């Protein structure tokens, strides 16, 4: 090896550093649409990834079934004990649904914030370097997927939103991703719902952090947290998790709640993509504004 950096090589190194900075600068801006060549490469690699993941899920599913059988007896006992409760709740539910429908008819409401359409998809990859929390799905714009749709896992817990879409695959930003723009408008379900934002993830404890909750709010452990439908991205009523503990924030003006997510961000295989069907603004309101 004569000299590690000769003059010509030094110039090439400097030029490539400039290209590196330029490319980072270009892709650092929040791109919803990726360029054509990128889409082609993602789809092609995604196809190969599907070949790898689908059989792996089948094998994993088999072992899970075997494990499930072992717990069957105890689970059965618990479930039997709760059966009475279930009958009571289902009666109550049908009553409430009827009442809700009549009230909606009276108000002539046709759509609500929690109308949505579900599409199933398979998780085909996950970012290996773990600096960012992204996963890839095998459905893309060809199946009607668009950026900013919500994604829930098979247990019904919210896991994130669609960030980028290519023809036959898409990339999902998980709630556990530590990006400042990654937030969800959420509410804590009680008589008088409390609103806040899911912002940030405590990686050591595996808990989501809900911020900007009213200081006066009396929040207890075990209360359920759902999406509020007010952010314009997610429909309302998607389950996020359960409150584990509450503490005042660093300025003492609002409260932070730590939330145990319903979804397991680390064992994702089959997920559902949620398309919000209700329009964000009432058309009548828009007409009023123009006239």
């Amino acid at each position: 090896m004569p000299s590690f950096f000769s003059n010509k090589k030094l110039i090439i190194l400097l030029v490539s550093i400039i290209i590196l900075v330029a490319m980072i600068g270009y892709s650092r801006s929040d791109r919803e649409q990726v360029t054509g060549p990128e889409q082609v490469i993602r789809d092609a690699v995604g196809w190969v990834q599907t070949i790898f993941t689908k059989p792996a899920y089948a094998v994993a599913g088999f072992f899970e079934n075997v494990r499930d059988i072992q717990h069957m007896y105890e689970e059965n006992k618990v479930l039997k004990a709760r059966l009475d409760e279930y009958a009571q709740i289902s009666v109550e539910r049908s009553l409430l649904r009827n009442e809700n429908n009549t009230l909606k008819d009276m108000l002539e409401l046709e759509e609500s914030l929690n109308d949505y359409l579900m599409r199933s998809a398979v998780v085909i990859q996950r970012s290996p370097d773990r600096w960012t929390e992204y996963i890839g799905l095998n459905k893309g714009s060809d199946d009607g997927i668009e950026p900013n749709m919500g994604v829930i896992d098979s247990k019904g817990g919210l896991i994130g939103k669609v960030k980028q879409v290519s023809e036959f695959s898409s990339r999902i930003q998980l709630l556990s991703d530590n990006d400042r723009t990654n937030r969800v408008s959420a509410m804590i379900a009680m008589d008088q719902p409390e609103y806040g934002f899911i912002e940030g993830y405590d990686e050591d404890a595996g808990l989501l952090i809900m911020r900007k909750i009213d200081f006066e709010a009396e929040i207890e452990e075990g209360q359920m947290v759902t999406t509020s439908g007010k952010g314009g991205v997610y429909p309302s009523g998607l389950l996020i998790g359960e409150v584990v503990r509450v503490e005042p924030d660093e300025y003492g003006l609002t409260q932070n709640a730590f939330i145990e997510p319903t979804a397991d961000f680390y064992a994702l295989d089959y997920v559902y993509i949620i398309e919000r069907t209700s329009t964000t603004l009432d058309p009548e309101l828009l007409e009023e504004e123009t006239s």
Partner: protein
Amino acid sequence: MSRFYIPTLVFLLLVIEGTLFQLVTPYQHDIGVTIVPRFIVVMLVLIGIHFGRYSSIIYGLVLGLVYDIVYTQLLGVYMFGFGFIGYAFAYTYKLVQDSLLLHLLFVALAVSIFEYYQFGLYRLIGITDLSAIHFFNERFLPGLVLNIAFATLVYIPVKKLFQYVGKQASLRQR
């Protein structure tokens, strides 16, 4: 035919890093460490040692670009990093080619350089706020151990494959 063996192998490793490997690793809040596979860096060093600087740079740039597009949001980080690894670790001396210890030494160096390059860059642009000591304990050391283990594991099969491909290439030239 034999000229496609190595590109296919390396591409499959790239796919495995993001799919199968992610299914079998335990997760951060279970074991307290994050294990990041750098199989491609390992392969780049091996290719550099056995086939020379030209091949390893080309492999590095192409794989880095694919890696950037498929697995990350930022373009260019892996492309530059892999390209640099391909450039800096191409020591085609007989002494190096025959010694497992020197192979592992270069793999360890390459993985360390790459990890610190990426950590520094991500700290700079604010993707992570992990402190250096946490990075060292929770990410760097476990990753280094894993990748050296991987290099030891694939050392003999990959060497055999390289020798076979090299022989086929020299036969074609005649």
